């Protein structure tokens, strides 16, 4: 009974022990990279896809997948993979660069309406970290301030005042970060995004082919999913245009 409890506790605390045998996956990843190097982009992308379907995820996996798609001229899928990778690691320079390169080759130019500068700054900070990264940051801030607290109390008593101030500042930052995290988490939980993967997509005013055509989108365009009525979904562009498309033409993020 106690032994069982300890086991569960260990599993919760150190899930590394729970890891299934993943050397197969790792070798598959290496093999896929070799296929990519040999210009066999189709098989490389299939392998990356397989790894992803096994439930594995890493920014590099999506990065490599995106590159393979890019070389296969599947611009929409490439952008999808890069976006996916950036969800895991929003500050990866290579991912950002390749996404920019891919975006530059897109046919559609959807201009986001101008927004307030400070708001843009806040948004870029907010999405500069993933939700998990925000939480980890908060944890680390709390830990550092705890250590400083101890130091100020027992070790460097002569600097107590300054150290206390730093401690409280760090705790304050942690609190603000927590608020930012909640804001981001709330927004992300509400938000569903998708990328157009079909070369050309007709967007209808209602979930039927018989309705009028509102506009046409091309591969790589990022959309907000606002409503779902299988097999139709309602999408919104960042410039505010709305319409219905069928699901197989887009790929949800």
């Amino acid at each position, binding site marked *: 009974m106690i032994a069982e409890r300890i086991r569960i506790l260990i599993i919760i605390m150190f899930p590394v022990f729970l890891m299934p045998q993943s050397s197969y996956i790792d070798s598959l990843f290496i093999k896929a990279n070799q296929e990519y190097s040999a210009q066999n982009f189709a098989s490389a992308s299939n392998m990356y896809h397989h790894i992803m379907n096994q439930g594995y*995820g*890493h920014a590099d996996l999506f990065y490599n997948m995106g590159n393979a798609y890019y070389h296969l001229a599947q611009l929409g899928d490439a952008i999808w993979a890069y976006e996916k990778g950036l969800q895991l690691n929003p500050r990866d320079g290579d991912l950002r660069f*390749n996404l920019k390169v891919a975006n530059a080759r897109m046919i559609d130019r959807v201009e986001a309406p101008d927004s307030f500068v400070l708001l843009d700054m806040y948004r870029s900070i907010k999405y500069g970290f993933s*939700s998990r990264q925000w939480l980890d940051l908060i*944890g680390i801030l*709390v830990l550092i301030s705890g250590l400083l607290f101890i130091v100020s109390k027992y070790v460097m008593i002569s600097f107590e005042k300054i150290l206390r101030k730093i401690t409280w500042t760090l705790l304050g930052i942690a609190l603000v970060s927590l608020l930012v995290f909640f804001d981001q988490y709330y927004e992300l939980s509400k938000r569903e995004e998708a990328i157009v993967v079909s070369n050309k997509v007709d967007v209808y005013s209602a979930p039927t082919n018989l309705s009028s055509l509102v506009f046409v989108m091309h591969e790589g365009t990022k959309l907000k999913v606002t409503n779902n009525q299988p097999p139709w979904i309602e999408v919104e562009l960042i410039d505010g245009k709305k319409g219905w498309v069928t699901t197989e033409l887009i790929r949800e993020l």
Partner: protein
Amino acid sequence: MKFRFLLSLFLFSSYLIGDIKVYSTVDDNHITINEAINFKVIAEGSKGFPQLDISQVADFSVISGPSQNSSFQWINGEMSSSKILSWTLIPKKVGNLRIPKMSVRVDGKKYTLSPIKITVIKSPVYSQKGKKKQGRQNKETGPPEIFLKAESDKTEAFQGEQITVYYKLYTRVKLRQYSVEKKPQGVGFWQEELYAPKQPILRDTRVEGVQYRVATLYKMAIFPTTNGDLLLDPMVLNCTVEIPGKSRFSPFFDDFFSDSFFGRTKSLVVQSQSLELKVHPIPDVGKPLNYTGAVGRFTLDSYVDTSVVEANQAITFTVELKGTGNIKLFDMSPPEFPQTLEIFNPKAFFKKDEFRDDITGVKRWEYIIIPRKAGRYFIPQQELTYFNPQSEEWESSSTEVISLTILPSKHISDQPTGLTKEEIALLEQDIRYIHTKPMRLKPVERRLISLTFIWANMLGLLLFASPKLVEAFRTNLNGDSGISRAKRALRKANRQLKKVTNHSDFETISRQIYEYFGNKLNIPSVGLDSQQVQSILSEQISSDLVNEIVKIIEQCEQGQFTPESQEINAMELARTASLVLSKIDRKL
């Protein structure tokens, strides 16, 4: 052989000032309109060349000169030198002309040249109408040996219409060589030289009964660029002809020498007449708004090398203009290409049909088109409206609409329009290479809260709490300190009171009560009695509770001595005591 050609006529006036003698001469003072004279200014014994302004000679135009010449002579052992300036002049009109009195500077001194009279007569043959019999005006001249005639295919034309002008040299003497001194020129024309053989072909012809040989030396097409009466200036030739030398040699040798290069030659300047042309403006009726000035007959055509390509592959689109007319003088505006096609500046070619007198040719514009997006595009038709001077009507020629089918590109490089600078820079770049560093892939973490978060927060909070925890731990170690005693007093008392199982164990109850107060109030418990308890408690809690506990203590004391007399047993009393103590503990 006429004497005037042999004679060098010196009409001079000389001034002897020191050793310098300045005078002017002409080689002939009786000429026809198409002949030239040689005008010389000679300074004998001077160091430098004479200086004078030739533009004072109003009746003649200068064909060439001045040419400078120095000569030295020894006469009777004395050396004399002379400096000669010479000009070739042609008369501007018929009549008694003169070279006016002119002042000339030689070696810083002024001299005056006397005027020279020159008689210019009409040339009998080449005059435009040529009706007069030759030799009537001047018996001495007779029909000219050589003359140049300008002919045009028309004397009236529309603006922009081609007029072809021929310059024909008629000669009765042997022509050794000729050079063009002055090409015909005129204001208000665009001229284009037409093909003429390098070696003119001479044909026999008769002009008013006189045998001549004729050759077309020069041909040109002129296109009037303005309208009105236009004048084409004459062409001037410098010819070298043989002098038939019958008088010099015996008839026996005559043919031999006159035909050979032993024959004497002389140089002549031959001038054509000017041409007067009447140019009509192009009629305004029916003139299109975008008229670019085309006059002639043209056909416009356009084609592409291929009409079905992938995006980003080049198409060559050619516009071809064929025809006769002022093809070089107007341009075609490019067609209006669809926006999504990238058009490079056209290369223009012109190929002239050399052997036709009417300027005929093909003008070609080659456009390189690079479609950037897939789809179906149309290059609209182009139209050229031109004026046909023959029918005197407006005509037009247009191309067909060309349809292009652009297939989607197999490569990702569809270049959309409206790119920013940054995006254009990005288009030139390739994506960065994949990450190949071996790594341990982990299943996607679905949980939001990571271990880092849990551990870091736990540790951090623990650190904040640690001072308190350390203190509590210390208190626990030396457990008898007053505060902890006080905290645990009630619990200890209650625990002991529960152990009272004997009906007569009143002593334990009273001892526990005293110990409780001892622990709680941090006073020695030994030697306490009910009076002391009452006096201490009455300051802090209500008298009811004090009375209750005092009553219990008294009951205990009584019970110790007479256990049977008590109406309640020790167990019940212990329970009451613990209740009362709990109440008291809350107040203290």
